[in-house]
């Protein structure tokens, strides 16, 4: 009897506090930015210059897969800015009325091949040099995988990957470690891998561009500040940082 009562009370307490479970009162000087993982380097450095230009403001980032971020926003995550690494996920966010106004396109990304340093398997492009080689790509369903499939189709190339990873960083890791002979990643990832890999450009890669969109979150309590951050990203300073990382400008 007691046991049941206690369990019921506990349930009541838990379910009672569940709906309003968005704690951590955000002080007005904290700007929370949700951004796709591929933006972590560029956005972190833009956040620093934003803080420098707005004394008293702290920019906090949450970098994750764009679809995960949309899920979190749907659950009421307290974000001010959302930057999606592809259009379908931003569409999901706008369809759920999570974004104030219309989001702006601020960068694009194209694909390239990376190979382990020195290109031991002699890869020359999305062509027959990949036959029998260990090729790693992103899986269908994740943004970089969708783009890869689209590009291969347009170029008439049949890809026979040995692995379809869930994250583009996993593709990078497998090429950097030499497990894979080649991987298809974004140009920005190839740049971030630095000297650990060689880059083999894909001919006509710019036929398929992945679009990055940013917008102010509808429930933001700092929408004014959030708009200023969006302006920084889409403005000349933001575009300079992004192009430096390998993004194609909109």
């Amino acid at each position, binding site marked *: *009897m*007691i*046991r049941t009562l*206690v*369990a019921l*009370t*506990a*349930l009541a307490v*838990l379910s009672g506090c569940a709906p309003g479970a968005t704690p951590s009162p955000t002080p007005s000087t904290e700007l929370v930015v949700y951004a796709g993982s591929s933006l972590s380097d560029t956005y972190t450095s833009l956040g620093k210059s934003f803080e420098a230009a707005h004394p008293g403001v702290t920019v906090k980032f949450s970098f994750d*897969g764009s*679809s*995960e971020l949309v*899920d979190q926003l749907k659950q009421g995550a307290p974000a001010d800015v959302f930057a999606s690494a592809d259009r379908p996920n931003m569409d999901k966010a706008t369809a759920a009325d999570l974004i104030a106004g219309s989001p702006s396109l601020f960068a694009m990304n194209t694909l390239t091949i990376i190979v382990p340093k020195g290109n031991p398997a002699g890869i020359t492009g999305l062509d027959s040099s990949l036959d029998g080689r*260990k090729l*790693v790509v992103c*899986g*269908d*369903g*994740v943004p970089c995988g969708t783009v890869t499939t689209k590009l291969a189709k347009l170029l008439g190339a049949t890809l026979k*990957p*040995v*692995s*379809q*990873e*869930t994250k583009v960083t*996993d593709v990078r*890791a*497998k090429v950097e*470690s*030499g*497990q*894979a002979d080649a991987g298809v990643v974004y140009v920005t990832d190839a740049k971030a891998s630095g000297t650990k890999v060689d880059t083999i450009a894909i001919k006509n890669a710019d036929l398929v561009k992945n679009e990055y969109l940013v917008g102010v979150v509808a429930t933001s309590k700092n929408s004014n500040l959030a708009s200023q951050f969006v302006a920084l990203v889409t403005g000349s300073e933001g575009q300079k940082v992004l192009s430096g990382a390998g993004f194609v400008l909109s």
Partner: protein
Amino acid sequence: MIRPALPRWLVVPAGFAAVFLAAPLIAMFGRVDWLRLPTLLSSPAAVDALWLSLRTCLASTVLCLVLGLPLALVLARSRGRWATAGRVLASLPMVLPPVVAGLALLVALGRRAWLGRHLSAFGMDLAFTTAAVVVAQTFVAMPYLVVSVEGALRSAHENYEIVAATLGASPTTILQRVTLPLAGPAIASGTALAFARALGEFGATLTFAGSLQGTTRTLPLEIYLARESDTDTAIALSLVLLVIAAGLIAVTSVFSRVKGTAS
């Protein structure tokens, strides 16, 4: 209802703990799209993942038994510093984050690694194969078998073995007739635990084996990928995993009760 030795207030934190553990699982049952469940579970990707998971887990559980059981026996009957070191080593993969396990395997067995290079020379290239999945699962699951069997063997039964030896039984006979039957429940529950752990293996597989439908993409990897685009499928597959795991844990608790009455 409550034993007098136990203070009554204890049921409050205990109740919280029970709700804390059960609530997310019950919530998941509520999110399952029951009408579409058969369709979701019969998609080729889901069937491939389920089938691959069962095949690889069976293989790795057999490997755990074949290799882990002798290790448990040796450790249980060893004393001293080396035995302690062995025990620590044998249980280490249990507490390692799976990604670390995957990285460790990569460093040892990867194409560029010292052991992996030698294997490649013999035409055994593990990279991105189903065998790599089995290796990853065995690595993380074997400690569960070793630890539970070793613990059971150390805590009891040595007297029976001594009696059997004084009656003239050979070591192999003692092993077959005395040690293994007495450790039976522990072996069974350890095996079920190892199977459950292999089934849930994710990080090491992703890091070491890759992810390709029908070859390396086991149930947890399929759930992870499905989550990106199709939450309903991810939850349906999670439900399957949850039901299988619950069944396995039920088996282990039945066997541990058998052990409890025997000793």
